[in-house]
């Protein structure tokens, strides 16, 4: 009889990287479907191109550099899908492909692959695209909902478009494919909470800070969290494992920082939306938070307290 020998523990959690990423994809499904419902076939093409090219880029890179092929962990699919959801439905076919290429190769693989990127790949790609093709990246249209009508160009709510709270909540507004339908995003959030994929800390703190800080500055707080990419950013982007802090305290600080920067950009910069840059800045602060904000160690209370 030959027996395996290994060190403890001998039982492992059923969650693995693949199952977690699969759960994120499932959580993104309502958002994707809502985006396609509002913006039609063009949105579906953008999302599909982004996702497929991200997986392809990851595969090719790992093949060419003789690394373990890790497309099976589904992280490239999540990145690609997020790149697609962060584009306007009018994006030409090459925009999602360049976006996914930047995300996977420049931001993720060049820094060491999964777990080693210092900023969120999808967001960094969006930031680069936004700086390179500002007009194409902000060519927003009114939802067509498969009515057959031609898409009408429109400003977003943040840039002056008037919409009711209900329209903003359900997604009947111009914007990026994935950011318009808040109901779908919240559904995905709930799913990830129940499945234990993420904790409530980052999304709830992020949104709460945006809400309160906007109110302090005299903006409509409800509109502040219902328009633009705040909800998508708080639930799906800021919660990226690799680029958010490890300790609970660090996560609160990180999320609060995101919220504050969003409101500052919206109010004091000549830029209507700032979620992308807010999260990217806090991504860069994360290593610092990990270094200085740590969980409390057991057994290192002050002497008198320990004896109490």
């Amino acid at each position, binding site marked *: 009889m030959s027996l395996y020998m290994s060190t403890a523990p001998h039982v492992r*959690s059923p*969650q693995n990287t693949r199952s977690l990423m699969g759960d994120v994809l499932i959580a993104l499904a309502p958002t994707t479907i809502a985006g396609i419902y509002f913006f039609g076939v063009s949105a579906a093409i953008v999302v599909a191109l982004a996702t497929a090219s991200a997986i392809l880029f990851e595969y090719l890179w790992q093949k060419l550099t003789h690394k373990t092929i890790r497309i099976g962990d589904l992280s490239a699919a999540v990145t690609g899908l997020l790149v697609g959801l962060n584009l306007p439905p009018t994006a030409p076919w090459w925009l999602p492909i360049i976006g996914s290429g930047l995300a996977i190769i420049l931001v993720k693989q060049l820094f060491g692959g999964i777990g080693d990127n210092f900023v969120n790949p999808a967001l960094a790609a969006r930031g680069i695209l936004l700086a390179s093709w500002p007009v194409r990246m902000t060519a927003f249209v009114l939802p067509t909902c498969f009515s057959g009508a031609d898409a009408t160009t429109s400003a977003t709510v943040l840039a002056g478009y008037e919409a009711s709270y209900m329209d903003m909540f359900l997604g009947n507004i111009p914007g990026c494919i994935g950011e318009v339908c808040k109901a779908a995003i919240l559904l995905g959030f709930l799913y990830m909470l129940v499945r234990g994929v993420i904790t409530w800390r980052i999304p709830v703190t992020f949104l709460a800070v945006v809400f309160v800080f906007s109110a302090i500055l005299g903006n409509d707080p409800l509109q502040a969290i219902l328009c633009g990419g705040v909800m998508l950013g708080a639930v799906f982007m800021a919660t990226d494992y690799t680029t958010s802090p490890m300790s609970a305290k660090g996560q609160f600080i990180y999320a609060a920082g995101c919220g504050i920067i969003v409101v500052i950009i919206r109010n004091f910069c000549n830029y209507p939306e700032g979620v992308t840059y807010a999260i990217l800045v806090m991504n860069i602060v994360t290593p610092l938070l990990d270094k200085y904000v740590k969980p409390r160690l*057991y057994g*290192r209370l002050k002497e008198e307290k320990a004896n109490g």
Partner: protein
Amino acid sequence: MVGVTMFACIFAFLLHHIPHHIERQVLCLPKYSFKGGVHPLHSQHEGKLPTRNAPIRDFVSDSVVIPMSMHLGAPSKPCVSKGDHVKIGQLIGEPVGGLGLPVHASISGEVTAVEPRLITGAGPVMCVCIQNDFADEWVDGIQGYGNVETVDPALIVPAIKAAGICGMGGASFPAHVKLTLPEGKTCDTIILNGAECETFLTADYRLMIEEPRRVVDGLRAEMRALGVKRGVIAIEDNKMEAIESMRKAAAGREGVEIAVLRTKYPQGGEKQLIHAVTGRQVPSGKLPIEVHTIVTNVATAAAIADAVIDGKPLISRITTVTGKVVNPSNLRVRIGTVVADMIGECGGYSEEAAKIVMGGGMTGVCTANADIPIAKANGGIVVYNEKDAKSVDEEPCIRCARCVQACPMGLDPYKLKHLCDAGNLEGAKANHVMDCILCGCCSYACPSRRWLTAAFKNTKDAIAAAARRK
């Protein structure tokens, strides 16, 4: 009306089935619990289902192999030789050094060999092998004090020492040393560890249900030996039957109380248990007595009761045999019973065995074959099949923070793992690797299947070895 009732039913159902991580996040119940931890095999009742209703069954084997090293401290010196006839309870190994313990014959019969044999987690150790003559003869002069409440407290610790009792929960620290207060230290609380948070094991649970009186007597003996006024028997809230049984047995006993703990691993870790029950934290690198607390296992307490009341040495223990065996059981076996005999008693393997673990799923130690004996601290044997035993490859860390949230000691396991893999002992020490209790929570929680606990164990061993060389 119907709608309201239905809603209430659904709500009650959801409350009952609320996932643990949600409960932890939303309700944040700190009482009788600790920070961090995991719920291993939660969906399978911690793997305890096959044996939790199996009554303790006595099993006496044809032969035993009794190691001279079953406790922390120097191995005992064999004082019998091949061909000798020994009786149950007869001294066969003399204690050596301050942490030494006597070893007694667990069956009567002929000594067939005194030679080095392999035991769990160690190289060859001197063992005394005895062939059973089934005469079941006890050695002369076994005499106890009858009652733990009337015995002279000064006689209790010597009786425990003579019985060769060590911690039976796994640490195997000599009990009489634990119950001897160092100069200038005081103790106000003795905690009996009945948490049994480890997966698969039900030996302590069955003991508390079937023989609660022994447990309470043992606790009272410990309390009286040290003049301690408060004794707490701590049990997890998934063991209601044991809680009820212990409550009944403890009724009317001076200073004995039952603490109900939340079910979470490692609730039975000494430091976590002390924090949950008393709110105190043992300072880093110090013993529990630093916060005026002593923790012993319920099985140890039962052995102490036998030693004080009947004068009987520690010759048997209850061990859970489970996993891929035909008839998973809780066996009361003689110390030194060989694992293969116990598995045979449980009907043999139900599937081809691919891994045999001495202890539970989170902290157990693998054995290379089934020919090793049960020591005083072995509470379980778990047999795994090929599917569950197969080793998994490490994937890159995705920084998901699950290890940080799971660590009951507040460490940064992901960071420590990088330092340990790089062989940076100083860096690991500066990041408190020596505070790691090797509970396995980080490895369990890691979705990238990284061998965190293994790296910390190796690093701790290396640091300890370096310190010894100096």
